[in-house]
């Protein structure tokens, strides 16, 4: 944290090297954004990547609460969804009346709606942090979701609302019919929002949010009101969530009550936490991963939600710093040279865990085939094999692999790793 402060303090006089160090992730990100659609050209992939952009903004906004301010929210989708609904109403208004708002600015409508509802709900819920805040956010989330079935005029009832993104005019004369055009629009907004949220972390408000997260009493003693700091962070997070909602409208052209629901709130929590809430880029990684898994894994296996839940539980139990946190930790350990002499045990540990994972996946897949397939006796494809799950043999093999891998890790690889790293556990 000290180095970041120094870098911030360096300000405009920073040398070129510091600038390069500061800017390379963004340049890399922009490069990836431009290159990806050239590699993956199918319209399905383009939509998937657009969804990733939406989720990145949403997850980053969530991390403004959880990671920066220590506010655990179970109802963040409220601002995403209400932003989306408001943007959709404006889109439909443009369709109906020919009102001249260009399409590029529609996400801003979502952001304003997010800000509006963030101010309303934030003013009543940010007085306390911790469990009380979590419960209020849950209550507000459930309330708004239940309201969606009551106020059908605004929420469009069961079917939801849909609009047409090609109707509004464009600032730059672009035709937003094809998905690729929307992809670039979403990505421009995503980059802008990400930069804005990154810079917000560096403002005095961002630092005070960290202080309020770590020790509200001391923060108060220094002369800041924790409630006000939480409120500002909350309203800003809601704004960016609303922006994500506005982007979502442009990608999907439909909004249903699921966007304000508990599942959406849970998904953003999962994304941010799996990626890692301790660093800025953690939620970005988490959002990409979660959207990818939702899109791809659900095609491959019926068990994808179970894997999803298991992954989350495992991250909470064994890697609370998140996947990005683990990767950076290992990277710095490697750069500091602490991998030297422990490379063998490390590879062995990873290998044993991979073997265990293969065994567990095999068991889960066979269980899904056995219990869910209309004819369990039909052979199923598992990795490169073809197995019949009604016999005991495949079960015995899969369980042996799982147990052997786990036993090798717990009984052999982990102690070895501890010894190699000089007694200190990971």
């Amino acid at each position, binding site marked *: 944290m000290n180095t970041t402060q120094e870098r911030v303090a360096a300000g405009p006089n920073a040398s070129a090297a510091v600038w390069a160090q500061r800017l390379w992730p963004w340049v890399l990100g922009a490069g990836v954004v431009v290159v990806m659609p050239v590699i993956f050209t199918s319209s399905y992939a383009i939509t998937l990547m657009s969804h990733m952009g939406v989720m990145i903004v949403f997850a980053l906004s969530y991390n403004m609460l959880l990671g920066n301010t220590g506010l655990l929210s179970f109802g963040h989708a409220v601002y995403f969804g209400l932003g989306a609904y408001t943007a959709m109403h404006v889109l439909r208004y443009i369709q109906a009346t020919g009102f001249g708002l260009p399409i590029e600015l529609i996400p801003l409508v979502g952001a304003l709606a997010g800000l509006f509802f963030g101010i309303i709900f934030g003013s009543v819920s940010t007085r306390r942090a*911790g*469990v009380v805040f*979590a419960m*209020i956010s849950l209550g507000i989330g459930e309330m708004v979701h239940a309201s969606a079935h009551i106020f059908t005029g605004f929420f469009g009832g069961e079917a939801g609302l849909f609009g047409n993104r090609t109707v509004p005019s464009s600032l730059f004369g672009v035709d937003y019919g094809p998905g690729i055009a929307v992809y670039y629009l979403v990505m421009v907004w995503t980059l802008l929002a990400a930069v804005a949220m990154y810079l917000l972390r560096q403002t005095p408000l961002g630092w005070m949010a960290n202080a309020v997260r770590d020790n509200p009493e001391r923060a108060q003693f220094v002369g800041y009101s924790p409630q006000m700091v939480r409120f500002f962070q909350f309203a800003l997070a809601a704004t960016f969530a609303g922006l994500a909602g506005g982007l979502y409208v442009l990608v999907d052209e439909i909004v249903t009550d699921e966007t304000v629901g508990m599942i959406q709130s849970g998904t953003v929590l999962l994304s941010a936490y799996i990626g890692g809430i301790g660093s800025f880029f953690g939620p970005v990684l988490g959002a990409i991963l979660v959207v990818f898994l939702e899109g791809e894994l659900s095609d491959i296996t019926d068990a994808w939600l179970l894997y999803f*839940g298991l992954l989350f539980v495992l991250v909470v*139990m064994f890697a609370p710093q998140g996947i990005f946190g683990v990767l950076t930790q290992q990277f710095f350990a490697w750069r500091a040279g602490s991998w030297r002499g422990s490379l063998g045990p490390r590879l062995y540990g990873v290998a044993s865990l991979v073997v265990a994972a293969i065994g567990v996946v095999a068991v889960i897949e066979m269980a899904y085939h056995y219990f*869910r397939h209309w004819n369990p006796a039909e052979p199923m494809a598992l990795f490169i094999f073809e197995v019949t799950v009604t016999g005991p043999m495949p079960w015995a093999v899969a369980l042996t692999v799982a147990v052997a891998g786990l036993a090798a890790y717990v009984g052999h690889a982990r102690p070895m790793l501890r010894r190699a790293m000089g007694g200190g556990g990971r």
Partner: protein
Amino acid sequence: MLEVIAFSLLNGLLYGMLLFMLSSGLTLIFGMMGVLNFAHASFYMLGAYFAYTMGLYTGFWVALFLAPVLVALLGAMVERYGLRRVHQHGHVPELLFTFGLAYVIEELVRLFWGNIPMNYRMPEALNFPLFTLFGTSYPAFRVFMLVVAVVMFVGLYLLLKKTRAGLIIQGSLSRPDIVSALGHNVPQAFMWVFAFGTGLAALGGVIGGIHFVTEPGMAFMMGPIVFVVVVLGGLGSIQGALIASILIGVLQTFALSVDWSLAALGAYFGYAVPPDHFFATLWYMDSTRLAPILPYILLVLMLIFRPRGLMGKRET
């Protein structure tokens, strides 16, 4: 009218006692361990499914006792090998762990029992009308549910107030550090309280699964309401949980059975909002449609004005 009130009261009390079976365990776990167990309703669901499957082989009466015990053992394992490990990272990871667990349990239930509702029915011995009130007969099974809930409440009360184990639990509710200093094994007490709480939830599931529907979405339906009850009653307070359970139960049942709206009230005073007015939707909304959000409105109001709940002793 009297008929509606009588039946609503009775059904509301019934629903409230069912809520209490879940909320008592949840509030006990929270009061003692500081863990708001998101997966509590998932154990309720497991109770229903276990009882259904066991009931196919052993009949309802054995399952009524065995299913909660099995679920309690499962709960003990979850505490011992999951929660205790996460405990060192603080309260937020604990909350997140149970949140993830709820996902996993729901998916496992979908895996083993499928997506469709189970044909989980009341035992034949209880399938008769017990008494007739205002010309409408009242099923014996509902009275049985009430009896189970009351027996559970009395048992819980006696356990907490009259036994040595209850004394330790009560002590751990307020000052776990002192109880630990007195030489009691607090982590083990945590484990058994967690097991006990999940067992109570499972007992609720065994009868709730018959009263409502046994399907994979039942935990998701029940979970948030139970949270509302526990927060309303005051986190950690059993009496508060009882009052809040019955309050929510009666309130929701009344909202569903009495057709009431602001417009009706306005008509009484000879006032009406024009149908094209901005607030017209709200004005003409009848109470049956408002029923699902009533608990959450109560929750938010309570947390704003009295965050410790009805009977809570401390703010969280």
